[in-house]
């Protein structure tokens, strides 16, 4: 197992190098002169030249890349064009906000998704199954920014709807913006987690149905153990194997999805940082943030592989 983890970590190195190449190339793939774009169209030639000089844009590309990589390894991702602060400082101020948002959303999605999926699978073709799958389809098809806006509308600004939501009389209890307090966290987490919950529910259902039809489930039943144990100990553990992969991918997706959610709820996370920086043509920040998100994605996948291995004893990669 230890060997496996070490080898899997080594395998991520080429991926990370690839990521840095792509992030580095972004600036050069944008049509036109990056220095001109950053300076703005009407900027004087001298200012454009200064930017070019400062960012080393007149050096040959490989050299630029190597110095970018070298600086990145030392924790220097350049400075923000807007604030002049180090990109790493800009990101670290917002990093945990996005991570928290993604983690809470994943927890919510896994919790709801697994329960819904298991109920659906064990009550196949029943009304509960149909209802759960309809809700899941809805959750899946709905764009999360729209859901976010609707949640703000219903539960935060509150228009004429307090009666059917009896336990909170003050509809402004849920905050429409910001991050930190429980009141601020609830709506964005629901917004971001719903889609994933739906995907996990559907995945769990189909995976459970497949597993329940297996011979070893019949063996377990023939042993006279309680149906609850058959489902949760014998079936779910096997059914989780494909679900774990989906959860991992979803978590990565949530980091991306956070861009919209953070914008809708005015949360100062990495997603909003990307959007604001793109609008301000603040290339170093955009590059840095995307690099961090991509690295997170790689890490999550590493974690998923290890979990997968722990769950599925048949994978023997040592």
């Amino acid at each position, binding site marked *: 197992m230890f060997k496996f983890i070490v080898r899997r970590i080594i395998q991520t190195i080429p991926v990370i190098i690839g990521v840095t190449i792509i992030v580095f190339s972004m600036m050069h793939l944008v049509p036109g002169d990056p220095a001109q774009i950053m300076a703005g169209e009407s900027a004087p030639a001298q200012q454009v030249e200064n930017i070019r000089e400062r960012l080393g844009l007149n050096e040959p590309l490989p050299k630029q890349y190597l110095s970018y990589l070298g600086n990145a390894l030392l924790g220097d991702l350049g400075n923000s064009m807007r604030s002049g602060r180090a990109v790493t400082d800009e990101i670290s101020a917002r990093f945990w906000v996005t991570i928290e948002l993604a983690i809470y959303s994943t927890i919510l999605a896994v919790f709801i998704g697994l329960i819904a999926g298991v109920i659906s699978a064990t009550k196949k073709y029943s009304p509960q199954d149909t209802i759960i799958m309809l809700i899941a389809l809805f959750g899946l098809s709905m764009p999360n920014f729209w859901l976010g806006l609707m949640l703000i509308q219903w539960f935060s600004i509150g228009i004429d709807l307090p009666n059917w939501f009896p336990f909170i009389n003050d509809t402004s209890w849920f905050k429409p913006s910001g991050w930190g307090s429980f009141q601020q966290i609830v709506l964005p987490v629901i917004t971001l987690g719903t889609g994933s919950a739906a995907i996990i529910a559907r995945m769990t259902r189909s995976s459970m149905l497949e597993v329940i039809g297996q011979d070893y489930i019949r063996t377990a039943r*023939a042993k*006279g153990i309680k149906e609850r144990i058959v489902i949760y100990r014998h079936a779910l*553990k*096997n059914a989780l194997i494909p679900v774990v992969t989906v959860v991992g991918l979803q978590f990565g997706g949530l980091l991306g999805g956070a861009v919209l959610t953070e914008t809708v709820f005015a949360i100062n996370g990495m997603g909003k940082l990307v959007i604001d920086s793109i609008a301000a043509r603040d290339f170093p920040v955009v590059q840095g943030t995307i690099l961090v998100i991509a690295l997170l994605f790689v890490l999550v996948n590493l974690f998923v592989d290890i979990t997968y291995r722990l769950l599925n004893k*048949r994978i023997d990669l040592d």
Partner: protein
Amino acid sequence: MKNNTSKEYENILEINHLQTSFFTKNAEIKAVDGLSFTIPKKKTLGVVGESGSGKSITSLSIMRLIDNPGKIVGGEIYFKGEDLLQKSESEMRKIRGNEISMIFQEPMTSLNPTLTVGQQISESYITHQELSKKEAKQKSLEMLKLVGIPSPKKRLKQYPHELSGGMRQRIMIAMALACDPDLLIADEPTTALDVTIQAQILDLINELQDRLGMGVLLITHDLGIVAETCDYVAVMYGGQVMEFADVKSLFTHPKHPYTVGLMKSIPPHDRDVEGDLDVIKGSVPSPVEMPNGCRFAPRCPFATDLCHQKLPNIETDSYGNQIRCWIYSDEWDGDPEVNVHAKTTEGTT
């Protein structure tokens, strides 16, 4: 814990007119249709028949593990004198794995890949005998020794994929016998194994049967296995028992034309066969289109109009052997001197 205060009984298992059907949108498929047999205490009954004759459905019916869209629609299954079909689901759970255990055909897929061998065997003890994990582990170890698994301590911590097929079947047997059941149902326990391993597994089942004194229901399609291991035989065809007899009578004097056909299709071990082996022409009827009369009539070389029109009743002779065939009834409309051993397939004598 086991309930030893149940009524007196002679047969460990007695099935009367069991009917198990599968329901599709517009049809009822009778997989088992009016099946009856008995297993005396501590005896082995072999159930033989072709694929699709309802053998496995019978065993799952006894365990009450028939899944939707299947359903037991009629009959009685007396186990130790009590009708299992009258039991509640929680009463059934106390019987499964405790008083009646089952070994399945496919050792490769019948064990849970994510639980260790030890966890899977211990589960029976924890469920039925309310032992602690530690005690259950100790018992599991003893059980592994009993079924002759080398280095049992190591095996407890292994996962099924680390073991061979024969080894896994031994684990299945250890699991099934954990709680010292009164009846063991073995559904083709050796079909998926090598011939040498087959013999080992059958010997093991026989040996443990003697030691633990349980009844065994052995489902197989191998008459050789039946001859070697069983006390009684039920020959199944189309969801019904065609012939039920003690093993000696069945092999020396098979009465049903189907049984005779089965026997004749086995290559003799003491001489070479000149020409082709005898075969039973045709194939098993689909349960969707069961013949109205005798299930075997379309393939029977002796079938008369009566056979095609009316289902024969099961008749019991003075030795307790049973047969479902018009030839042995007073209503028989064919040749009264018919000899079922004389011909096997239409047209050959």
